[in-house]
C-alpha cells in the first residue's frame, strides 16, 4: 500500500511569473514527508500540484512510477486534508465521510462498513449524525481526516491541517496524525509553516524558500548539518544565534574575541550557534564570548537567557533546569567547537575540514 513519489524538475508558472523553479525530489514509499517554509515559499502550491488541483507547468510528477501530470486529481489515488477542513456544512458527518465513496458508486453496505471503520479509528462514532457546525475544531479536523481515510488512498496530503486549532489541541492532533501514519503506513505529505510540527512528525523534511528546495533530509540531519543560513535559522527553536565573524587563519574573530574552533577556516562571514548548545559553566568546550544578560525567562524545565555580546550582537541561550542568572550581569559563555556552524558571505555552510 506504500507508494513512491518522484518530482523531476517540477515547474509552476502563472503566466510569466514562475513560482516553483524546477524541483527534484524523491519521496520513498511510506515516508512521512513535511514541506516546510515561510509563507509564500511555494509549499502549498507544490502540494496542490501533486494533488492535481494545480496544473503542472513543466517537469514530471511520478506516482508509483507513473507519470501523473495530466491525470485528473480523482484518479491519482490521493486524499487531501484541507486547512479549512472543507467539510460540507449541509451534510452530517456520516454523509461527509460517505460522499467520496458514493461518488465512486461504492455499494452501500461497503460504504457503511468503511465509514464505520474510519470513525472508529478516529473515535468519532458518536458524532456521525451531527452537522459540522455542531462540532468543535478538533472534531472537525478528525472528520476531515476521516474523509481522507475512508477512500483508502495511496497517498495522503495534508495542507496545514492544524493551523486552525489551539495550541494544546494541535499537539494532540500532531501525535494522532503521526500514530495514524504508523498504523496505516501510507506515503504522506504534510505542509506546515511550523518547524516544530516538521521536526516532530517528519521522516523527511523539505525546506522550501521562494520556490526552491533549500535542503531536504531527516529532521536531525537538518538540525545538525544545515546547508545554509536559511535552513539553520528555520529549523530549531529558539532560533540559532548568528554572530558576525571573520577568520584570519589563526582563529575565528567573533564578538571581540578570537576563538580557536580547532579547524582551519577561511572566508567565514557568520558563525551560528544554537541557544541550547551554549553553556555558562567553565571547562565545557571553548570560550565563546562575554555577554550581558538582558532578560531571563524561567520556564521551570529550562532557563532562557536573552543577552547581548560586548560588541552589541543579540544572543540567546537555553539552559537546562533552573539556573540563577542575574539580570544585567556580564557572564562568560562556552561552547563545544563541534557545535559551531560556519557560513560564508553567501550564507552557505563551510564544511568542517
Amino acid at each position: 500500500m506504500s507508494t513512491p513519489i518522484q518530482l523531476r524538475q517540477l515547474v509552476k508558472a502563472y503566466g510569466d511569473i514562475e513560482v516553483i523553479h524546477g524541483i527534484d525530489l524523491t519521496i520513498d514509499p511510506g515516508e512521512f514527508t513535511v514541506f516546510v517554509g515561510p509563507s509564500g515559499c511555494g509549499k502549498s502550491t507544490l502540494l496542490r500540484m501533486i494533488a492535481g488541483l494545480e496544473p503542472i507547468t513543466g517537469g514530471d510528477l511520478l506516482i508509483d512510477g507513473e507519470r501523473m501530470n495530466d491525470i485528473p486529481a480523482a484518479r491519482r489515488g490521493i486524499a487531501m486534508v484541507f486547512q479549512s477542513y472543507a467539510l460540507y456544512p449541509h451534510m452530517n458527518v456520516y454523509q461527509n465521510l460517505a460522499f467520496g465513496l458514493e461518488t465512486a458508486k461504492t455499494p452501500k453496505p461497503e460504504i457503511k462498513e468503511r465509514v464505520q471503520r474510519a470513525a472508529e479509528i478516529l473515535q468519532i462514532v458518536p458524532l456521525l449524525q451531527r452537522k459540522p457546525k455542531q462540532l468543535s475544531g478538533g472534531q472537525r479536523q478528525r472528520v476531515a481526516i476521516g474523509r481522507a481515510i475512508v477512500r483508502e488512498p495511496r497517498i495522503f496530503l495534508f495542507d496545514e491541517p492544524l493551523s486552525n486549532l489551539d495550541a494544546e489541541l494541535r499537539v494532540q492532533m500532531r501525535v494522532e496524525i503521526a500514530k495514524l501514519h504508523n498504523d496505516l503506513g501510507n506515503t504522506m505529505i504534510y505542509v506546515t509553516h511550523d518547524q516544530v510540527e516538521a521536526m516532530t512528525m517528519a521522516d523527511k523534511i523539505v525546506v522550501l524558500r521562494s520556490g526552491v528546495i533549500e535542503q531536504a533530509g531527516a529532521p536531525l540531519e537538518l538540525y545538525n548539518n544545515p546547508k545554509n543560513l536559511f535552513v539553520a535559522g528555520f529549523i530549531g527553536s529558539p532560533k540559532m544565534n548568528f554572530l558576525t565573524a571573520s577568520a584570519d587563519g589563526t582563529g575565528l574573530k567573533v564578538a571581540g574575541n578570537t576563538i580557536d574552533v580547532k579547524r582551519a577556516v577561511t572566508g567565514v562571514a557568520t558563525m551560528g550557534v544554537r541557544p541550547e548548545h551554549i553553556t555558562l559553566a567553565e571547562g565545557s568546550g571553548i570560550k565563546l564570548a562575554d555577554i550581558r544578560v538582558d532578560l531571563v525567562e524561567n520556564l521551570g524545565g529550562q532557563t532562557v537567557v536573552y543577552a547581548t555580546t560586548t560588541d552589541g550582537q543579540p544572543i540567546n541561550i537555553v539552559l537546562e533546569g533552573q539556573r540563577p542568572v542575574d539580570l544585567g550581569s556580564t557572564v562568560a559563555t562556552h561552547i563545544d567547537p563541534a557545535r559551531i556552524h560556519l557560513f560564508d558571505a553567501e550564507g552557505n555552510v563551510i564544511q568542517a575540514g
Partner: protein
Amino acid sequence: MTTRSLESAAPTRERVATPTVWSRIWQNDAPGYLFLLPWLIGFLGLTIGPMVTSLYLSFTDFDLLTSPDWVGASNYMRMFTNDPKFWASMRVTMFFVIFSVPLKLAFALMVAMLLNRGIRGLPLYRALFYLPSLLGASVAIAILWRQIFAGDGLVNKLLAVFDIAGPSWISNPKTSLWTLIILSIWQFGSPMIIFLAGLRQIPQDMYEAASLDGASRWRQFVKITLPLLTPVVFFNAIIQTIEAFKSFTPAFIISGGTGNPINSTLFYTLYLYQEAFAFFRMGYASALAWVLLALVGIFTAISFLSSKYWVHYDE
C-alpha cells in the same frame, strides 16, 4: 459617615433626575425623530393611511362621486361566487407566477454561474446584465416588447429570413402571455446579482475536495452548489414571486390596458386597475387588492414554513 451621606443624597438625586431624564431624552433623541419625520409622514400618510382606507372601502360600494355605502362582505362574496373575470385573472396571474419565477431564477442562476467562472471584465458584464432589470418594468421597454413581438415585429422579421411566417405573438391568446413571461425572464439581473454574491460565498476548497473525490461538475452542482445556495434561492424565490404577483406595467402596455386577447393577459393587477379606474368600482377594487395581499401572504407563509425542509443555513 459616608454611608449616611449617600443615603440622604440618593432620594434627592432621584427626584431631580426624573425631569432631567425626559429632557435629556428629548435633547438626545429629538434630532433623530426630526430626521425620521419625512419618512414617518410618508409612511403614515401614503402607506398605512391608504391601506386602512382601502380595507374600509373593500366593505363598501364606492364610485368616487357619491359617498361609500357599507355593503358588508358582499364584494368578497361576489368575487368568489359570481365573477368569472376574477377567476380568469387569477388563472392568468398564477400561470405567470408559476412559469416566470422558476424560469427566471434558473436563467439568473445559469448566467451567475457563467460569470462566476472568473471571466475577464466581470464588472462590465454584471452591469450590462443588470440593465434590463432597471429598464424592464418601464413603459418604454413594454412598448419596445410590443414592437418586437407584433405581427410585423422583429421576431417575425427574423423568422422570415428562415421562411417562417410567425403569428402576431401578442395578439394570439396562446402566445401572448408567454411574451410577458419572456419579458419577465429577461429582467433576470437582480436575482442574478444576488446569486452571484451567493456563489462567491461558497468556499473554493469544497469544490476542490469534491473534485479529489471524483465528483463531476454536475454532481458538484447538485450536491454542493445548490444546497449551499438554498438561502439565496429562497430569498430570490420569495422576492420574485411577490414581484410576479404585482406585475402590471407590461401587461397594461402590451394589451393596451384590456388584458386581451380573450383575457389571456388579464393580470390580476390589470383587472384590479380596470375595476378601479375604468369602471370606478373602488369598493370592489379595494376588495381585490386585499385578496391579492392575502394571496401573496399565504404564498410567502407557505414558503417560510417549507423552508426548514430545504433551506440549509450554515452556522
